[in-house]
């Protein structure tokens, strides 16, 4: 007779199974099992691929006006899809399809950079406030309160409008700045919770240096919600950047394709060719949705309550 497998043995095997597996791997494994995450990841994957290979994918130069399209362009009529131009022409006789593809680069660039800068600054502020407390905390959080009290789009508009000449850089700075207080407040809160935790006390009791306590024991445990927020911020950053462009505070270069700007300039032609507004609008929505889906599943995957 074979040796019976006891419950204890099986449990031991199961523990051994996960022993040594990193928390990141654990979270990734849970992400792979979530359909929401997969949909989000596929959308973002396509979006990233398209923007990386945009010059290869676009059939035409997005800045070039084509005579055969210009010929068909007259008041009250903008040429629609035709051979060689799958989405037709824009209001200036340029290839709408190529412009859509090239615009994804701008969107990705602005979204990612604005999020990264906002995240970096927010983490610095949050760590300082959460780790030191006292007057440092008070000063930083009052400033944060002020920034948070201004509606984010209004704040972004004000910052972008302050710039002498609107450009891509000002859009990135404006959107990043809007997100700094959000990241800072979030991180500060979880840093405070960590500061009171037993394992931080235990590390202190072990004589671990203060900087190491903050950076190795508090920050990694506090950063989870911030990472999730960053994923969601990618979506809102893209929307905010589009909104700024739409309002004429974006990149002033008319040759450069950008979804928000395309949406804005399509406005007068809504009754003539609604497609010109619909394509960039759908693109913005789908990409924002992709980041949101991934962000939400990431939050679930990182949630310690979901952990066995």
């Amino acid at each position, binding site marked *: 007779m074979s040796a019976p497998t006891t419950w204890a043995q099986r449990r031991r095997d199961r*523990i051994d199974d996960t*022993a040594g597996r990193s928390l990141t791997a654990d979270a990734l494994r849970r992400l792979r099992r979530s359909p929401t995450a997969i949909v989000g990841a596929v959308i973002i994957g396509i979006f990233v691929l398209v923007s990386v290979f945009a010059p290869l994918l676009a059939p035409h130069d997005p800045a070039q006006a084509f005579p055969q399209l210009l010929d068909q362009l007259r008041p009250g009529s903008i040429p629609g899809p035709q051979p060689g131009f799958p989405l037709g022409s824009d209001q200036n006789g340029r290839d709408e399809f190529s412009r859509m593809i090239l615009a994804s680069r701008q969107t990705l660039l602005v979204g990612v950079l604005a999020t990264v800068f906002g995240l970096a600054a927010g983490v610095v502020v949050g760590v300082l406030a959460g780790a030191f407390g006292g007057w440092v905390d008070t000063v930083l959080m009052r400033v944060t309160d002020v920034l948070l009290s201004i509606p984010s789009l209004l704040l972004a508009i004000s910052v972008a409008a302050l710039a002498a000449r609107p450009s891509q850089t000002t859009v990135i700075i404006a959107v990043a700045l809007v997100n700094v207080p959000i990241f800072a407040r979030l991180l500060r809160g979880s840093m405070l919770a960590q500061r009171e935790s*037993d394992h931080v*006390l235990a*590390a202190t*009791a072990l*004589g671990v*240096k203060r900087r190491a306590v903050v950076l190795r*024991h508090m920050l990694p445990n506090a950063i989870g919600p911030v990472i999730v927020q960053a994923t969601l911020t990618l979506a809102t950053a893209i929307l905010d950047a589009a909104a700024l462009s739409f309002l004429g505070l974006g990149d002033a270069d008319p040759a450069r394709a950008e979804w928000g700007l395309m949406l804005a300039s399509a406005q007068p032609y809504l009754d003539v060719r609604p497609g010109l507004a619909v394509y960039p609008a759908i693109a913005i929505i789908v990409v924002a949705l992709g980041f949101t889906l991934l962000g939400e599943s990431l939050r679930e995957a990182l949630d310690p309550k979901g952990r*066995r």
Partner: protein
Amino acid sequence: MTPLLSVQDLTVRFVRKGEADIVAVDGVSFDVGPGEIVGLVGESGCGKSVTSLAIMGLLPGRTPRVGGSVLFDDGAAAPTDLLTLSDAALRERRGRDIGMVFQDPLSSLNPVVPVGVQITEALTRHRGMGKDEARTEAVTLLERVGIPDPARRVTAYPHQMSGGMRQRALIAIALACRPRLLIADEPTTALDVTIQAQILELLRELVAETGTALIMITHDLGVVAGLCDRVNVLYGGRVVERADRHALFASPRHPYTSGLIGSIPRLDSDPADELPAITGSVSDNLPWDHACAFAPRCPRAIETCTTTTPVAESGADRLLRCHNPVGAAR
């Protein structure tokens, strides 16, 4: 013999705005000799944990006012008063001279760092080891505290271990730098009974082996009975009775000690008998400055107890703070 640690008249006062201060520890004095196991016993709120945190300089925030002295013999000509040390100097000693084991092993381990790394952290910090050397030492330590398959467990995260294993890991961390004093704050409270016995046995072995002195903080007299050389019974932030383990259990003199011992269920007692209990709760305490704090709950309270502070008297085999101790004529 000079004591390794001498706590003298330690007071911890939590200052509150617009309210009376809370005196958590009210003039506690005790000594710990090298290699000795000393118990601090009392119920919740008697000041045991605050005492240990004050020794380590780990009391939170700026509000607590700490008085008295905590003299630690570190081999220098005169012992160092830990309470007067700067933050940086204290940090040098924490972990190296004094280790600490906490109550809840899960929450006391960093959940995102493998246990091995948490051990090597102490080794590289205080013993100046390189990475590889520290890792080897971590495996040895885990093996020493009885964790099976230590070479693999070194990379395990706390949530991948059982409660007993976590507490063993925590002990390994505390002992990593071979401190001369270990403070264990209710190290077995969060564990089930069989694991409790194993952990206590492990602690006993380790201190005997390394010559580390141990302060055992507990509310469980069973733990004290099996482990401690000497026992300090705390009530309301003061030591009310101190004696050797045998003397204390054989003939408790303070009514509180006697009540604690009396309320331990015995195997040979009649199941029909009601288990004796100490009436009331800590919230009934009188202030020490003109009474005995325990008087309202004391079965042997006499009039003096509510009017005069009992003085700590050192007898032949014990220290006692009581007007009408057990065994005295009424």
